[in-house]
């Protein structure tokens, strides 16, 4: 990477990373469409009852599994790309400033999944408490979270927060390492600020490798938490959850764009990707 093609190569890896993200956003959009369709069948089509409810449950289950496998694919792809160029993932140029301000090790905090469950499980109930108490929601969505499920979600939360803290602490150590040997000493001893040296490059490469490892572990926790959560929820609740999480993610992306424009940050000012990810 230290050869003269370095610039060109790294920009192309940047483009590939951007493309990977853009594809992921687009895939999420199409997944969302399918999930929403399954959750709100076309008007006129009654919710299947009785015998067919198991097949509908299967459909929910399959779609959840497919969505999760898409998430897995994305993680695998980006882990590979991150091996070439990790730093960009910690503040991606293809994400909005808003999104970047919310990143935890290059993605969402896994504990956010649980917060989302809590938000969804309560939102229906408050709308009409007395009616809820008389009839229940009985629509099989997250508002119907049972006592057992609630306690499982709670256990998952405790575990997830613990794992998150552990990794946060490791990231802190890695970041502190920068102010230590060898980089701090190399910088201090340099006659010119920013002077490159083989030693410095090697230290930075090592650091980036460690950062890439942390990213992979963070992704592992994200995926594991999502899978365990979907294991606790019924397939229909799982679809409900996935719809809400995709909508939140995609909305944040759009809201972020609007805010960036508002503050005079034009995403085009940065190196544009081969194709724009704007739709419509």
């Amino acid at each position, binding site marked *: 990477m230290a050869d003269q093609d370095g610039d060109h190569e790294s920009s192309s890896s940047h483009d590939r990373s951007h493309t990977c993200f853009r594809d992921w956003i687009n895939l999420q959009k199409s997944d969302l469409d399918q999930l929403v369709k399954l959750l709100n069948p076309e008007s006129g089509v009654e919710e299947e009852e009785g015998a067919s409810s198991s097949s509908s449950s299967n459909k929910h289950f399959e779609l959840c599994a497919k969505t999760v496998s898409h998430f897995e694919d994305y993680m695998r792809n980006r882990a590979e790309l991150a091996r070439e160029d990790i730093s960009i993932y910690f503040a991606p140029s293809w994400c909005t400033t808003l999104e970047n301000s919310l990143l935890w090790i290059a993605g969402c905090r896994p*504990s956010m999944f649980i*917060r989302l469950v*809590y938000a969804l*499980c*309560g*939102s229906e*109930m*408050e709308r009409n*408490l007395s009616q*809820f*108490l*008389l*009839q*229940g929601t*009985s629509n*099989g969505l997250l508002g*119907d*979270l*049972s*006592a*057992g*499920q*609630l*306690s*499982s*979600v*709670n256990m998952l*939360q*405790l575990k997830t*927060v613990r794992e998150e803290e552990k990794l946060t602490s490791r990231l802190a150590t890695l970041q502190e390492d920068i102010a230590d040997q060898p980089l701090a000493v190399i910088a201090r001893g340099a006659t010119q600020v920013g002077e490159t040296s083989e030693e410095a490059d090697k230290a930075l490469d090592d650091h980036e490798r460690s950062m890439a490892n942390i990213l992979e572990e963070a992704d592992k926790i994200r995926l594991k938490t999502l899978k365990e959560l979907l294991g606790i929820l*019924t397939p229909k609740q799982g679809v409900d959850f996935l719809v809400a999480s995709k909508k939140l993610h995609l909305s944040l992306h759009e809201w972020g764009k609007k805010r960036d424009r508002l503050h005079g940050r034009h995403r085009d000012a940065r190196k544009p990707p081969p194709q724009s990810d704007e739709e419509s």
Partner: protein
Amino acid sequence: MAEICCEVVSDSEPAVSYEPSSRAARRRRMEIRKFRFVAGDELDNSENQKRPKLDGQIKDGETCRSNSALFSRNCRNAALSTIADGLLDQNDAVEMDRGVESEAMESELTVCSETPRFGYASVCGRRRDMEDAVDNKPSFSRESSEPESDLHYFGVFDGHGCSHVAMRCRERMHAVLKAEIESRPDPTSPIDWRALMERSFARMDKEVIELNKTLLRSDCRCELRTPECDAVGSTAVVAVVSRDKIIVANCGDSRAVLCRGGKAVALSSDHKPDRPDELHRIESAGGRVIYWDGPRVLGVLAMSRAIGDNYLKPYVICEPEITITDRAPEDECLILASDGLWDVVSNGTACGVAKMCLSGKGLPESPWAEGGEGDDKACADTSMLLTKLALARHSTDNVSVVVVDLRRS
């Protein structure tokens, strides 16, 4: 406090929602039970039965005694032998068994029809740390040698600073109480609940302070803030339910609420630093209440009583306030909960939800998962529903709710 409670109590007097006939029948049953149980004790008339005794709360200030003198006879063995002796006097072999082998008996007794059904939910919620703890021990002790004198214990502890004080209360409070109950010099005499609860809380507090000292050298999270390890404490709201009474001891801002005839009756009053009598107590002890994100003792702690918090003594005390309430036929349930619930759900709403949920309305056929062992599904569902309501109303704290079904079958 007294005013508030009395007002609520008089509100609850006309138990609207009960059919007169079944209500009368229930009361008759109740009275039979009561006479059998209280035989030899002073007898309340049926009017009195409906009215919770909320006396003593205000006067408790003066009755505070030196705790040290009361610690003298807490030896567990002494307790067991004393109760065994007392029971032997009455030639009750089974009871003796229980005195000696209390743990083994417990599970068996849980099946007894008089054991109230209960359930609980306790979640971390929107906090990243879990500092609440819940402990339920049906039939944890008995009041006398009478066959149906089982005492049932329920407790909610909401820790602050770190979770270890709340956890220790969960592990130990019931045992401390049990030891106090069973070390009475005369096990046939009625229990002086006020003195007993005060002794128990003082003892629990002492244990916790010892624990804090040892933790200074351990790997507890709060050890990172070593000078502040003393700044760890917990609320404690403890209810003991007997066949005819509900005894609630409270320290801090968790709360016990009785649902009686569809109305809410607070059985404890939160210890907030700006409660006039508490403010007065703190200031006469030389402390100050400073408004810093709400009223706080010395600008630090947002409650005026707690277990632990050694560094805030004598302003923050561990002395509980106690209410003793006679059970009534129209009692529906008892709710104990941490402020994660009460911050966003009023006593009345909580009772409304609990009443509906327990009466079987409102819970449709849905794949409810099983609760914990020994728990009652309806109670677990009720506590879960209240927890969900708290989360729905954006409670930002840990939420813990215990629901005890007081209806007699």
